[in-house]
């Protein structure tokens, strides 16, 4: 009797877990299947077709919004990763110094406030700045995205740095390497996986944002998510399924890459 008594067993837990995994994936799978539906209605199956992908591809609004999403995402991800790397270097591998706790709090602040509150705050602030400067370009969206991407980019970079001791850097300094050379030849190569993970995380976070973009954007500045939100509110066509499927594929690709980059030890 004792031999088949498993200490790890809890009644019903495996069933609940299995249900969770099925429930997590089922709606996404249905969404993808209906992207290939030939029927115009989203409620019946009219055979396999790629026509909704084609129609999305020929929709200039979709292409515009996609390109804008990539543009904002790329710039915001690169900027936030650079800033987060610098901030991580400044806040790790040191004894506590005045202001260190403040820095942690400030960098993580965007995570603590509900998105809707930040969105409203930026709407108010940027509308003032717009009147004052007359500029109404993509700069506002890029600034907002950079700000909320920093804490995400900071996370893996800081984690990586905390696992690196200063031995190699000290050795380099002993051998008369300049601080810059030490950074380029020692710190940066060791830190690289963390930076890469931060960059991908920031890009995904920027690409996924709906709320802040929805409030900050000026007319004609739809990103792919805000365009989709508008379409879904108006009524759905399988074209949204097709766009979602393409978007999904991209996210999964980035996450897979991220998973391998951040799992690789040294």
């Amino acid at each position, binding site marked *: 009797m004792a031999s088949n008594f498993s200490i790890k067993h809890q009644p019903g837990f495996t069933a609940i877990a299995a249900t*969770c995994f099925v429930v997590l994936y089922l709606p996404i799978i249905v969404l993808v299947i209906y992207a290939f539906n030939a029927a115009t209605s989203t409620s019946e199956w009219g055979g396999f077709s790629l026509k909704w992908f084609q129609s999305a591809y020929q929709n200039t609004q979709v292409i515009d919004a996609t390109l804008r999403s990539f543009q904002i995402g790329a710039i915001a991800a690169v900027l936030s990763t650079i800033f987060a790397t610098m901030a991580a*270097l400044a806040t790790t591998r040191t004894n506590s110094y005045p202001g260190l706790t403040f820095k942690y709090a400030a960098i993580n602040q965007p995570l603590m406030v509900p*998105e809707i509150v*930040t969105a409203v705050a930026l709407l108010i602030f940027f509308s003032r700045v717009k009147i004052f400067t007359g500029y109404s370009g993509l700069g506002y969206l890029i600034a907002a995205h950079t700000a909320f991407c920093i804490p995400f980019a900071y996370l893996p970079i800081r984690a990586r740095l905390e696992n690196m001791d200063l031995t190699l850097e000290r050795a380099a300094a002993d051998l008369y390497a300049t601080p810059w050379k030490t950074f380029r030849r020692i710190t940066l190569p060791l830190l690289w996986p963390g930076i890469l993970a931060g960059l991908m995380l920031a890009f995904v976070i920027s690409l996924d944002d*709906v709320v802040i973009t929805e409030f900050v954007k000026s007319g004609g500045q739809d990103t792919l998510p805000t365009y*989709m939100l508008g379409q879904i509110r108006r009524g759905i066509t399988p074209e949204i399924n097709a766009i979602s499927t393409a978007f999904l594929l991209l996210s999964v690709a980035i996450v897979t890459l991220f998973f391998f980059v951040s799992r690789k030890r040294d």
Partner: protein
Amino acid sequence: MATAEEVAKAAERRDVRDRWLLSAPALLVILLAATGPLLIVVVYSFLAPGAYGDVKWQFSSDAWTSVFLERDIFDDTLSLAAAHVTIFWRSIKLAGVTTLATLALGFPTAYFMATRSEKTRDLWLFLITIPFWTNLLIRTFAVLQIIRNEGIINTILLKLGIVSAPVQILYTDTAILIGMAYVYLPLMVLPIYASMEKLDFRLVEAGYDLYATRFRVLWRIIFPLVKPGVIAGSILVFIPALGAYVTPSILGGGKNMMLSNLIELQFGQGRNWPLGSALSITVMIIVMVALLAYVRNASKSGVRHG
């Protein structure tokens, strides 16, 4: 050797200064495009609304009064603003129930994942991470297609003859609840799993050696040990659920507003920016209270488990 001491002190000062310079860009961007504007919201909440949106620059506490109260236009008496109270209550209730639902589903899931062999654990973690990083809007849209009247659930129920007309789930509070539980579930599983992974099963074994039942082991040994993860998960679900915008906008329809929709309304058709600001600050205060409770709880359990 006073000079050596002075040199060391100067080096330390330089180090601290360099560290401030290094973190300056990140701090500046966050100050300009995240933290700073929050202070402007506080200012705006004490101003009068402009006729076409924005504000008039004169002091007014009307916005704060009308967060929970409304003035009768005939006899000027104040009464509870039923519409606002309803929306506050609905948001807190839905966020709370979402937290409990994700906990009830997420805890066993995290336990299941943590008790797999070390090799397959990564696979399960990966499977939970994918929905986590998938666009929230797309996941909400996926739920919409499942629960609407022509969706899979209703089609199956109709075909099996269980119901004669489609069950109206979409555009109800239940729809928002299902949607939020669905999109926030990974946020609950991940921190609990992180705690669970470190769980020392020798303690569980000791419990069984002392004739504890499965439930007793779960409740008295496992649960207390992974409590920090449970609290972290609850906070991670509760905060975004309280301020949720996308899910109620898509699944709730026009009538079932949550706080964020009410706030949006004030900046759009409502043209009452001060009220919108006051409501935003109120949401933030609720979140801060929840976070403080978390920090206090976390430091308490930190002492107990070393």
